[in-house]
């Protein structure tokens, strides 16, 4: 298989888009928004709105957090097509450097989804540093996912499709990976880390791995990320805070910048998950542009005092 760096990928996807345009609108019809995504009912009274699990075993705290939300069966049904979107932004460092999502957290989610009867569980991201194959390997995620029975997928240029963003305040359309929009279940699994431009990279920011034209999205970043989140709408957000990158993000490079926090945060509400994760850095959701913008758009709540938050120490 030809290995493409992101630079080569973006060139190829641009050429592909041009080719599709030449074929005519009939061959590239606007797909239905979130056609396959199932609507998730609100949590019941015995289910946490947001779960925070702490402990030394990443697999155990991931399971604990999901259990507090009502179990994976609340989100995944038999026969579902599931996509897990971790942060695998670069192939520079192994997971100890907290630039990429903890592989054990990802693999645990794969196991849970397959256990709930998912038809398939694919894991994917579009790194900007290195090739997808290299990033998948160096991050440790490929090995862990495959051992759990999941599939790593290299995002194909031909699957990026322009989608309208009806709720968008700054952007009204963008090229997004089609499968991410159409999967029955999208589990968003960011790693909590510093970001030089956005201040923090959390759940909403993690969705940028499913788009093209990154140089254009980084203007008015807060609102554009929120606009994108209004389209993508992950089913579940699980924030990996087993280790967090406290500075020099998003790529880091020094273990001196990594803090062991042994925490996983999970919620159906992307905004709430991000707002809670921000507190690990001494910040509030309102301190982060895209969290605030997403809350103002009604995509979720930053008011953690108004929802049922269950914290469990394992």
């Amino acid at each position, binding site marked *: 298989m030809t290995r493409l*760096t992101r630079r080569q990928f973006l060139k190829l996807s641009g050429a592909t888009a041009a080719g599709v345009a030449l074929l005519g609108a009939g061959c590239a019809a606007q797909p239905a928004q979130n056609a396959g995504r199932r609507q998730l009912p609100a949590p019941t009274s015995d289910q946490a709105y947001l779960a925070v699990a702490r402990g030394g075993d990443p697999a155990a705290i991931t399971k604990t957090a999901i259990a507090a939300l009502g179990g994976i069966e609340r989100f995944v049904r038999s026969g579902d097509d599931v996509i897990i979107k971790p942060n695998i932004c670069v192939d*520079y460092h192994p997971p100890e450097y907290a630039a990429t999502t903890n592989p054990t957290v990802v693999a645990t989610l794969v196991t849970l989804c397959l256990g709930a009867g998912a038809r398939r569980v694919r894991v994917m991201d579009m790194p*900007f540093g290195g090739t997808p194959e290299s990033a998948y390997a160096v991050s440790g995620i490929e090995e862990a996912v495959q051992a759990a029975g999941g599939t790593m997928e290299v995002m194909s240029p031909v699957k990026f499709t322009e989608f309208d963003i009806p709720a968008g305040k700054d952007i009204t359309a963008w090229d997004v990976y089609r499968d991410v929009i159409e999967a029955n279940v999208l589990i968003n699994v960011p790693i909590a880390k510093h970001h*030089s*431009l956005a201040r923090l990279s959390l759940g909403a920011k993690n969705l940028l791995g499913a788009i093209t034209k990154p140089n254009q999205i980084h203007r008015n970043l807060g609102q554009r990320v929120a606009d994108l989140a209004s389209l993508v709408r992950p089913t579940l957000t699980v924030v990996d805070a087993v280790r967090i990158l406290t500075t020099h993000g998003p790529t880091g490079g020094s*273990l001196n910048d990594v803090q062991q926090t042994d925490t996983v945060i999970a919620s159906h509400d992307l905004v709430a998950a991000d707002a809670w994760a921000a507190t690990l850095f001494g910040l509030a959701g309102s301190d982060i542009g895209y969290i605030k913008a997403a809350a103002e758009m009604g995509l979720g709540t930053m008011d953690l005092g108004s929802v049922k938050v269950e914290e469990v120490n394992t």
Partner: protein
Amino acid sequence: MDGMKDDGRRTKDEPGAGVGIGTSRARTLVTMLGFVILVLSLAGCGKSQPASLIEFFPSAGVVPGWTPSREVELYDRENIYDLVDGQAESFFAYGFERVAVQDYENAAGAALSVEIWQLATPADAYGLFTAGIAGSPVDVGNDGDQDPGRRLLFWQDRYAVHVRARQELEAAELQRVAGEVSTALPAGGERPELLGRLPSDGLVERSALFFHEEISIQDRLWLGGENLLGLGPQVDGVLGQYDVDGTVARLLLVQYPDARAAAAGLAALESGDIGGLAAANVRDMLLGAVLGEIDKAAAEMLLEDALSDG
């Protein structure tokens, strides 16, 4: 006269064509004269522009055991996002011009990557270096920083160089590669003059950060994200961390292009909701501020020390 056409021009085949003396000798003199003019004009230039950054990378065999594993990748302001995604703004803040990336591998299958960043000025290269300090000092270039065996960063002239290993190596391996790059780069590069205003007493070693724009300091000092102080390419700033009798304080100095801008910066700072502001003042074009849970008298003393010319 012999060899002259009716209009006075000489043909190239005619004796004395060109400048009135032997052709070969004339060409030699013209070439030498042109070379002298070129050398003099380059000497008068503020900076040299290599044809390509590629010439700074060690070629195969220069560093024992390491060979280039693919072609050099080149990035400029148009495509830098392909390399660093949203971090691009952090590099623009230091006058980023271009970067080249070369990967290397050895016989054991180990890999490392070398990035050579060309910034607008040596001060910018120094600034980018200070923004990236995360490890321990290493003697490469003008200043170096390393996570031994994993990462090495140094600056020299207007270049910042980043060496990164894909897997942990002996620290000496990265140092050797970095050393060869340093040898190839132009020597020199002055640290920013403003650095000299940071009082040495209490200054935490290697904490000084040189900057122009707010993005460069916002993970150390959050000013609201709206460019409260009017920072930008036209200003120079330094931010240092101090240990004042066991209390951590930060000293911020911003050199504006004129006194009015400095005064505006002070006004904005004092009226903005900046937590921990202990003291602030201006002296001509220079704005200074001390932030932290520090005794007010100590803050004012530190500030006065920084702003004074004595």
